[in-house]
Structures are given as C-alpha cells and as structure tokens.
C-alpha cells in the first residue's frame, strides 16, 4: 500500500476524526489517542460532536495533536476512522477530508458512503468486527484504535499506557481485552504516515476539559460556594466542582432554577464567601435581574456562561460565541460590570481565577464567556502554574463609628463589612441608596453612586492581561474568547509564508481597554474582526466604542461549525483585494 502522500496536512500536527453510532465508543477511543499522544510528549485537543439524543444517536471525536500547543482544529483531517457508517452524513460538514486523507473502516460495516468517496480519500479496510468478535469482550473501537495508532505513528507502548489510564475504572479484564484488540488492529497493516510527526521529549502535561479548567480557576480564585442549575454544556463544570468544593471546605447547592442560583450566590457572597455560578445562554437570561442586584448592592459574584448556539433553546450541544451582546448590554439601567473570555482551554484556569478575584476586589459582577468548544473539549496542555493574583475583597473587621458601606472613596471602592461584625451593620440594597445604604431617590445620591460604580472599574489598572497580543505588521486580526486559537494558528501559517501580521485576542471585554487597543491598531492597513456569531457582535461593539478604523472588516461566522484557518486566510485575502 502506498502511503507516500499521507503527510499531515497542516504542518506539524496530525488530525484524526473517529465516528460511530451511540455506544460504539468513538469518544473513549478519541480520549485514548489524545492521551497516548501526550505520553509521547505531544500536546493536543479533542473536540466532540453529538446529536441531541441522550443515549444512542451518533457521536464523533476529533483529535489533533502536535509538538506545539493545539488550540483549534485544522482545515482538514488526515484520518477518518469510521467505526460504522450510521448517520455519518450528519458529520460530513464537521469532518472535512481531502484526497490526501485516509479513511479506515470495516468492510463488514458496508460500502463507504458516496459523499465520502467524492473527496477521493484513500481507503484502508480493517476487519474491526472480525477481530473483535474473536476476543472475549472484544470491542471494535479498540481494534480501530490499534489501526489508527499505526497510521498516526503513535507507538504501541504509549497506546497501552493510555488505554490502562483511561479504562482503569472499568477493571482489569476490560483493559486486558482492549489491549489484545488494539494489538490486532495495530499489526494488521503496518504502514505509518510518512513522514511522522517530529519526536518530542515527554513533558509534564495536564489532560483537562475547559469546564474542568474553569472549575480549577474558580477554586484557585478562592470560590467556596456555588449554587447552580443543570444546563448543557455547563453541567460538567458543576459536577466536577461539587465533590471538590466539599473537600476544600466549601459547598455546591443545586438550586431550583437559575433565578435561585444567582440569588443564592449573591446571598452567600453577602456573607463574605467568594461565590460563583455556571450556566449557559438560557440560564444567563434568567439571571440578568440578579446581576443588576449584585452590581448595585456591590456584592461580588462570578458567572461562567458556557455559550452554546442561541437564541432560545438554540443548539444546546454545539458552540457559538453569540452571548457577547447580552453579557455587555443585558442589564437594565447603567450597569457597568466586568466581562471576560478565556482564550483557550488552558486559559480557562487563569481567566476564571482573574475574574473571581477582580469581582471580589472591585465588588462587582464578573461574567466569564466560555463556550461549548472550550468547555466540552479535552486538551493536553502544559500544566498551568499557580498564579498569585493579589486581588481580594478588602473587608473591614473593625469598622469605626464613621463606617459607611457605600462611601465614596478615592479609588471608588467602598469599605465593606460582613455579617457578624459589630459596628458594621448595614442593609445591602438593590434600591439606589446614599453612602450609608439608606434607600434614596435623590438625584445627587444616584449620580454619586453611578459615578462610583463606573469609575471603580474604569480607573482600575488591569495590567497586560486584558489581551494576548502577538506579532506586528500591517495586517491586524482582532478576536475574543475561544476563536483566539484559530486566529493564532492563521497568524503562524501566514508568518511561515513571510507575511507580517498582528493578532489581538481580547480576554477582558468590559471595560474595554480602548486606549491600549486603539494604540495597537493605529496605522494598520487591514483590520479584520473574527468571531463565531452571526451579527458580528464584537465588530459592532468595537465600532460603538470608536476604536476601529473605517476600513475594518468583520468575519462573523455563526456556530456550530468551528472557524477553520482557511476561512480566515480567505477573508484576509479578500480584504487585500478590496
């Protein structure tokens, strides 16, 4: 068999998609490949795709690994492993193949569907079912894994270590038969890709999802109380946090609805305990009135919104960056608050921690806009070092007679006491109030408190973490949140071709660091704003804030398909022509 052409199509990485009907083990197989790659020193990313069914239906795992950090999927898959052909048409859009791709499938599963033949990918047949049925508890996904490992150039030892790790909880018997099945698949047709990925030294890495990484960030930020209502795709963050919060002396309360969860964390935070909730679009919509209460009563809270396709119920299992508008503008009244977006799975740790601690320090609301593509994807990342962020709530433990909860101070951050503190009693209020906290509808009190709540955020020095800035050049791409991964990859590809390009990935969306951003894009010939939504929400926001030059262009692609490097490169080329 001739594999000469099977080079990895996005230089330096290998991309494989595994598809199958529900229960066929596509996602487990994906996880094993991902962690085997980690055992070889690679970093990687696994996204998954599933229909709305709870059980059954179809699922796909997409894995990409490389010697470098992997923060997005490429334009094309090097390898498709089809455990069966059931509902494969639903994934056709999500798994682009080319004539350089290879398809591994079982002849027993039937003909390769027409739409997959049309891309002229090479087909390698492996009798998954025959091999699997010859073994006690033999599973076809494990046979397929072996064949896949051979093609990917992942050594059998690394695969074996990964199988043992991932299947550990299933018992020895399962692991043993998995290893035997895998070895059959591995040895069936010994033709690896040519050339394989460069060898790398094994390093200390984490295997983690974005939802877990937000959980780690929350705990690092000092969160001790979470109240939340289950919602896709945020629930895994809550499920990860619940037992761990307990072990750290905190707790998670499953609330009756999102109205309760936001108000519960406000109550807990009023008690002095750093508090957080996680939700997705519909839940955030329900919480918005509570956010205003937290903001005006100056009770710090953090809400992690794991975005999914919207509006309304939308596409619950798939990703979209379409909640920027509600995050920025959803509250009634003049309601300045903090809005963040993690730029990668690894960055979920830092951004969530930063958001929690800034909410505490500035006594305000932090919204963190993660999304399904971060939350439910598994990544192999360099372990994020513990980050000593200094910010916390400045609590007065011995207030004097002059204590006023909502006093106008020099830095506009009012002194705060906690229940249980003698001499510091006050009533936190969603009603506008004077410096003492007494409800007031006087114009002067309203103006003073509005000013205070705005200026404490505007005047704070957010340092360099407001954005990740890479490169320099006449072309500039601005993006936010999870699409930072693909934008950075585009820049790397273009730089390899000798083109100078600057990327600005916004981590802090509100308050917008207008001046710093303006300086960075000053003089740029082309400015492209890239985001995964339909309306160009960031593009319009930046225009409203008067930071974009006239020639700036928008590349806004709605979910659920991920933005791929080629799409952005094409947009830049078009922009060049105009």
């Amino acid at each position: 068999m001739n594999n000469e052409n099977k080079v990895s199509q996005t230089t330096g990485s290998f991309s494989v998609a595994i598809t199958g009907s529900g229960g066929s083990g596509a996602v487990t197989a994906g996880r094993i490949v991902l962690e085997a790659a980690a055992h070889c020193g690679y970093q990687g990313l696994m996204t998954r795709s599933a229909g709305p069914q709870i059980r059954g239906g179809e699922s796909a795992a997409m894995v990409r690994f490389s010697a470098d950090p992997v923060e997005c999927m490429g334009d094309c898959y090097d390898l498709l492993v089809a455990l069966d052909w059931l509902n494969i048409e639903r994934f056709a859009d999500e798994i682009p193949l080319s004539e350089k791709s290879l398809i591994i499938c079982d002849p027993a599963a039937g003909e390769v569907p027409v739409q997959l033949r049309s891309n002229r990918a090479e087909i390698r047949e492996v009798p998954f079912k025959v091999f699997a049925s010859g073994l006690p508890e033999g599973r076809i996904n494990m046979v397929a894994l072996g064949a896949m490992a051979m093609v990917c150039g992942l050594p059998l030892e690394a695969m074996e270590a990964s199988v043992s790790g991932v299947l550990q909880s299933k018992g020895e018997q399962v692991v043993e038969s998995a290893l035997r099945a895998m070895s059959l698949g591995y040895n069936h047709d010994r033709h690896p890709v040519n050339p394989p990925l460069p060898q790398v030294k094994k390093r200390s890495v984490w295997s983690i999802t974005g939802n877990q990484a937000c959980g780690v960030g929350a705990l690092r930020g000092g969160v001790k109380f979470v109240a939340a209502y289950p919602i896709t795709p945020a629930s895994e963050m809550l499920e990860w946090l619940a037992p761990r919060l307990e072990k750290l002396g905190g707790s998670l309360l499953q609330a009756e609805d999102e109205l309760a969860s936001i108000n519960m964390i406000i109550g807990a935070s009023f008690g002095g305990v750093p508090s957080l909730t996680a939700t997705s679009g519909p839940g955030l919509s329900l919480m918005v009135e509570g956010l205003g209460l937290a903001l005006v009563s100056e009770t710090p809270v953090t809400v992690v919104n794991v975005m999914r396709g919207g509006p309304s119920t939308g596409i619950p299992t798939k990703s979209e960056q379409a909640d920027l508008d509600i995050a920025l503008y959803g509250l009634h009244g003049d309601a300045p608050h903090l809005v963040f977006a993690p730029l990668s799975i690894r960055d979920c740790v830092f951004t969530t921690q930063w958001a929690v601690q800034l909410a505490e320090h500035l006594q305000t609301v932090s919204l963190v806009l993660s999304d399904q593509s971060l939350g439910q994807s598994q990544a192999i990342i360099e372990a994020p070092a513990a980050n000593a962020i200094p910010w916390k709530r400045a609590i007065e433990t011995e207030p004097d007679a002059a204590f006023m909860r909502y006093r106008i101070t020099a830095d506009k951050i009012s002194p705060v006491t906690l229940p249980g503190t003698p001499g510091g009693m006050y009533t936190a209020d969603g009603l506008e109030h004077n410096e003492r906290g007494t409800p007031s509808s006087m114009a002067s009190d309203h103006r003073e408190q509005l000013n205070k709540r705005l200026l404490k955020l505007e005047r704070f020095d957010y340092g360099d973490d407001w954005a990740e800035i890479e490169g320099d050049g006449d072309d500039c791409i601005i993006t936010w949140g999870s699409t930072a991964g693909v934008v950075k990859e585009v820049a790397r590809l273009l730089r390899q071709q000798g083109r100078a390009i600057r990327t600005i990935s916004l981590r802090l969306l509100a308050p917008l660091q207008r001046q710093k951003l303006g300086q960075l894009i000053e003089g740029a010939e082309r400015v492209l704003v890239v985001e995964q939504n339909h309306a160009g929400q960031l593009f319009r926001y930046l225009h409203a804030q008067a930071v974009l030059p006239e020639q700036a262009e928008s590349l806004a692609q709605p979910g659920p398909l991920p933005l791929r490097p080629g799409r952005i490169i094409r947009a830049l080329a078009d922009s060049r022509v105009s």
Partner: protein
Amino acid sequence: MPVPALKAKDYKSGIKPVWCPGCGHFAVLAALTKAMAHLGLVKEDVAVVSGIGCSSRLPAYIDSYGFHGIHGRALAAASGLKAARPELTVVVAGGDGDGFSIGGNHFLHACRRNMDMTYIVMDNEVYGMTKGQASPTTRPTWRNSKMTPHGTGIPRFNPAAIALAAGAGFIARGYSGEPSEMTRLLVEAIEYPGFAFVQVLSGCVTYRPDQRGWKEVVHPFINDVPTEDRIKAAQIIQADDGKATGVIYASPYPVWQPENEKETELALLEEEFSL
C-alpha cells in the same frame, strides 16, 4: 462585666418606615424586635433578608445586617447566605405577592430544603407598592383593581396547605392586631431548628380598608394545635377559614445544611489532571 440586656427598641434602626399610617406591618416590626429582645439575639449575628414590596422594606428598619434584594428572590438569597454562614440567625420577610406569586417556586423549595431560617409573610391580599392589584391570596371576586375589573376569577393560594405539602416542618399564622401572640409565634419560629413559616394577616389600610374588619373574624384555632401529625395538620388547614391564628404544625424534620470540613489542598486535587 455583663452586657445589659437589649430591649426591643434597641433592635430598631431608627430609619422611618415608608409604610402608611395604620399599616399592619408596624406591628410585625414591633413583634419581631420584641422576639429578638426576648431571645437576646446578638444584633450583628442576625441577617434580615427580603425581596420587593411594602413589607420587604423591613430589613432597613431592624438594627442588624440586612439584605433587600429583588422581587420574589428573598428565600434564594437567604438560602445562599445560610449555606455560607450557618452560624447566623436568618430571618426572611416579605409579602404575599413576593412570596407566593413571583417567588412561588422558591417558597416550595425552601420548604423542602428545610434550612434553619424563619420566613415571615405579611399577607394583606394585595400588591400595595404598585397601588392595589390582586395578589395570589386575594379572593376571586374582589373587583377593586382596575387590572382585574372582574376579579381574578381564580381560587386563592392557600399558603399553609402548600407549605405543608412542600414539606415545611413549622407552620404558623399570626395577626397584626394580636401583637403579643405574634411575638410568641416569632420566638417559636426563630427557635425552631429548620424552616419556620409564619403567615401574618397584616392588613393594608390603603387598598384593603375592608381588612379593618379582620379584628372581628380572626380567632384562635379551635382544634388542638400545634400538631405534630401531618395528616391532622392537613385536615386542620383544609377545614380552616384562613383567619385562625396560632402554631398549626410543628414537627422535627432533618435540617439541611452543607457541613464540610476542609480535608485537602487544591494543589493535591489538581494532580488528577497530570499525565
């Protein structure tokens, strides 16, 4: 040196209530401060939490920590506070619209959850702050609101029955015209280890002047109350005219409170991700 015992007036903040002269809520405020004095509560260890409405203005009038939140969410905020700070005495105050209409779901689940707190609902069968609309406890034929010119036409919400069905372990009803009984009810409610629900018939002089007639119809329960028997309590509540006062039901239920001892460090937990 022993600290001199606080009197009821010491628990008042001195802020002048927004309530109309003659409002029943003044009596509830007085009874609550008397109950606090009777129990010798340490002011700063008390948090009074409320939502929105005339009665929800109460926290600011008590000299303790207070949280005046948004409409219907008082029980949620109070539950979060109690979960985070179990040592505090948490008192929740509000009205019939706040508690039974917009906050109805939280009422059900607070009864179920049975956290140790007291919930006082000042029931005047009307939305006062928005100027006189029908509430869930308004009788269906009350036609004095322009918003429901034919009356609501739907049966009243029965707070005690719903509290019992939802699992509350302490259910009482007081009347603002019987302040000493109300003080006693509030003392018992605060002492009850769990979710204690006290409905107070607290008339609205402005939008429900007819409620002045309550003093003629309010009466003690004729049955043996309080009962510990759920089935008997249900019978009493179903047979009741809604104007009987006293503790109806008091039964020890397991209190829910997250109690977690710190047993590890975050850095150790993070090791689960290392490959």
